[in-house]
């Protein structure tokens, strides 16, 4: 059997869900990356909203869109409190995009502020998680990641 073709298919679509994790805190980025990798995800990290948008091909710089290298992610998990652009603002930008609005977005925060939580959920976030994240929290993301695995 010609393994070449199916091999390419796997590489093309990927068995592993691809998660974009956004957090301005270095330690938190390392932690969330490990948590997700332990759940067999491919992980890309970004240190702020702007970098995340650039990666997603949504930056105001139109060159990204013409480039054609819009990265495919299956889930975006972002910190709420970030300098420059908050996680909420990033969420809005994602939901405004026709290309990316279907991508589930999860917001994390170290602060349990009910108004903040409802604001994010109303804007379309799938889930709100309290930091620090644990393995049991990542387990709750399984449903979004499962769809990628068949």
């Amino acid at each position, binding site marked *: 059997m010609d393994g070449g073709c199916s091999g390419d298919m796997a590489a093309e679509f990927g068995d592993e869900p691809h998660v974009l994790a956004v957090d301005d*805190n*270095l*330690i*938190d980025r390392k932690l969330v990356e*490990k948590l997700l990798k332990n759940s067999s995800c491919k992980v890309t990290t970004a240190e702020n909203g702007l970098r995340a948008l650039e990666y997603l091909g949504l930056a105001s710089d139109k060159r990204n869109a013409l480039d054609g290298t819009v990265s495919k992610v299956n889930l975006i998990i972002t910190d709420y409190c970030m300098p420059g652009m908050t996680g909420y603002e990033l969420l809005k930008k994602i939901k405004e995009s026709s290309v990316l609005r279907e991508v589930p977005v999860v917001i994390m925060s*170290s602060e349990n502020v009910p108004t903040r939580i409802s604001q994010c959920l109303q804007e379309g976030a799938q889930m709100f998680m309290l*930091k*620090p994240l*644990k393995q049991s929290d990542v387990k709750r993301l399984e449903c979004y990641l499962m769809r990628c695995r068949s």
Partner: protein
Amino acid sequence: MDLFQLQRRLVDYRASLYHEDFLDEQFSQLQDLQDENNPDFVVEVVTLFFEDSERLLNELAKALEQPIIDFKRVDAHVHQFKGSSSSIGAQRVQKACIAFRNYCEEQNVEGCLKCLQQLRHEYSLVKTKLESMFQLEQQILSAGGSIPM
């Protein structure tokens, strides 16, 4: 000290760190994440924490030395510190940060300076303790043993 004694010593030492609130449950979470693919994960994260903390302590000292203090900036640094200490389970450091943030909100210089001192102190303590713990772990590994859970 033989291997068994070293392992015993580590278990007791670790227990004392939890008992005295230097570490909390979140640190155990970090240890649980470590595996054969990433056998140095805990040391790596803690090392990052040390580097980042030292940077933040310097920034805090500088910010509080200014003739006109930008409390928002001070608070932003403390918020970062609170976040990272919480993520690795350094409970006493995290608590010191919480107290610090209250003084930032009140724009209380005296309070902030006292908190910075306290924060330095707590950070220095947990750093020493974690380094001792890692040293014990190294000794066990060098003696051909495994780290007890």
